[in-house]
């Protein structure tokens, strides 16, 4: 039997000698490096890979258009040669335009509209999700049943219905993708909010008559950033996929616009003859969605480990 214990071990760690001069244990130096969602996410290798992949494509999409025609000698819509020729670095497309030029110019629309759709969807979903959870009652029931209605129509089918009626315009794409994301985000937000609302610190805030809006934004919102960040990453991945798919179906960006999805649609008949017209945009979209999905997954892992640590 061993009696060798450290002198402090029997001491209740919660006590501080009140008679001592000042605080007995210097508290503030303990949390040397705060472990936040961001640091835990970044600590994963796959997050770094995801960020690099995403950054690469974002860079191409943002800077690409600025390089024309300086870098390639052609504009995005100018004709370089006859269709499907080997001229230039990556050849020409179905109308004889320079593939590289079209590729460099073609990412902006996809990226812009995906981000807009995700942001709008996130805003709507968060709003409805938090309100449904916090107010509860018939409003909750109404919001969640409306969600069920929207969820019953697959995203792409819903988009096709909207495009049939309103035409293939950018704002229609953004709105319809946002509206189809919103119910899913609202569900996640609602569940996360309900978890937080069950906690006593929300009851405490109610007890101190903290205004409801302040409770939502100061007490609830900071505690659901984890699931929301995961949703943002996931929905961005799906937005990119959906908007690119619509363009690929010929129902997104319209000719003669330079757009990756549209490029694939235009050039796929000559896949074996002149693969670059298809493969460049396909690769870019693949790398981009893989990148954003890796980031989303890293956030999910980081926020799961945070929950384990807390309880």
């Amino acid at each position, binding site marked *: 039997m061993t009696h060798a214990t450290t002198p402090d071990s029997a001491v209740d760690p919660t006590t501080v000698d009140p008679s001592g001069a000042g605080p007995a244990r210097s508290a503030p130096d303990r949390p040397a490096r705060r472990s936040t969602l961001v640091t835990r996410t970044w600590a994963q290798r796959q997050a770094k890979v995801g960020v690099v992949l995403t950054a690469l494509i974002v860079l191409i999409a943002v800077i690409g258009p600025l390089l024309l025609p300086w870098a390639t000698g052609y504009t995005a819509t100018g004709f370089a040669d006859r269709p499907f020729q080997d001229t230039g670095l990556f050849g020409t497309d179905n109308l004889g335009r320079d593939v590289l030029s079209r590729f460099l110019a073609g990412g902006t629309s996809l990226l812009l509209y995906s981000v807009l759709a995700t942001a709008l969807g996130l805003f709507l979903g968060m709003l409805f999700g938090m309100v449904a959870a916090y107010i509860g009652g018939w409003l909750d029931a109404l919001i969640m049943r409306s969600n069920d209605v929207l969820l019953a129509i697959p995203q792409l089918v*819903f988009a096709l219905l909207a495009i049939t009626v309103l035409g293939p315009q950018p704002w229609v794409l953004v709105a319809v993708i946002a509206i189809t994301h919103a119910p899913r985000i609202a569900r996640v937000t609602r569940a996360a909010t309900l978890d937080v609302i069950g906690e006593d610190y929300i009851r405490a805030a109610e007890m101190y008559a903290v205004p409801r809006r302040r409770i939502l934004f100061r007490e609830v919102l900071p505690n659901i950033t984890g699931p929301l960040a995961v949703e943002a990453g996931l929905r961005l991945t799906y937005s990119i*996929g959906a908007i*690119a798919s619509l363009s690929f*179906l010929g129902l997104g960006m319209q000719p003669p616009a330079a757009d990756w999805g549209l490029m*694939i649609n235009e050039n796929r008949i000559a896949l074996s003859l002149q693969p670059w017209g298809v493969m460049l945009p396909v690769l870019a979209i693949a790398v981009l969605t893989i990148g954003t*999905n890796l980031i989303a997954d890293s956030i999910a892992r980081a926020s799961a480990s945070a929950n384990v640590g807390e309880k």
Partner: protein
Amino acid sequence: MIVQLIIRRLAISLVILLAISVLVFGATLLLPGDPALAILGQQATPERIQALHEQMHLDDPAWSRYLSWLGGLFTGDLGTSVASGQPVAELVGERARASVVLMIAAALISVPAGIALGIWSALRRGRTVDSAITGISLVLAALPEFVIGIALVALFATTVFSILPAVTMAPPGTQPWDFPAQLILPIAVLVLVVTPYIARMMRATMLEVLDSGYVEMARLKGVPERRVILRHALPHAIGPVAQVVAIQLAWMAGGVVVVEYLFRYPGLGQALIDAVNYRDVQVVQAVTMIVAVIYIVVNLLADIVGILANPKLRTGGDR
């Protein structure tokens, strides 16, 4: 008790379907200006526009058009295609069968495969197999259908190996499933899109169950590992997984549109794209409703499976 629960779910499903029908019909009201003009284009003669007005009952109030449309849905009259003049039911019926063949084949492969991979991955948590399955499914889950499709076409039908047909070509009078080789790539795309989700969810569910107190207790009771998995862990994963499978089947209804377009497969999706291009609202509405009904039914089945798999719900939770 359990019958009540199921009847309740059924009633909710019906209400949701009704709401969907309002939404889908309401979409036509968003057509800018005169729908007939929008559909026929600027060159249309006043007579044709007038004829279309009568055909679509455009001069009736919206609610009466809605009711006759809804009534038509119940009697199998899905309206008339503006573009081709054919009854929608006729246009859609044949093609729906082709699509369903594709989806069922894909589901038959991806559901068992996803579940098996998910369980395998969960049981080998942290090992190489797990990392490989998790990593690959993460990448596949990120990719849109057409990206996977084009990759497969490039790999197996054109550039690398030229062993499979890149497009479906069924001579008139034949069915697409008369040429099995043509079905391989479309089905493969759907399988590759859907399987990762099922595998990921199955893995997550299994991990949660394997970490539970009753699984630890079963091991401490001396229950053989095989029995721990089959008897103690798996039953608890049935409910959640049924949900995921339902959602994935619905997702496939969207994916099948892209796949059919990519492979020129003569299914419902292809018909839908054509209809959108011709602004053939009647067809799009009908297809949307069909897809929604399928989704609701599949979801309802999943819920019932979940209820049956849970003794707490089954017995009403009374002490």
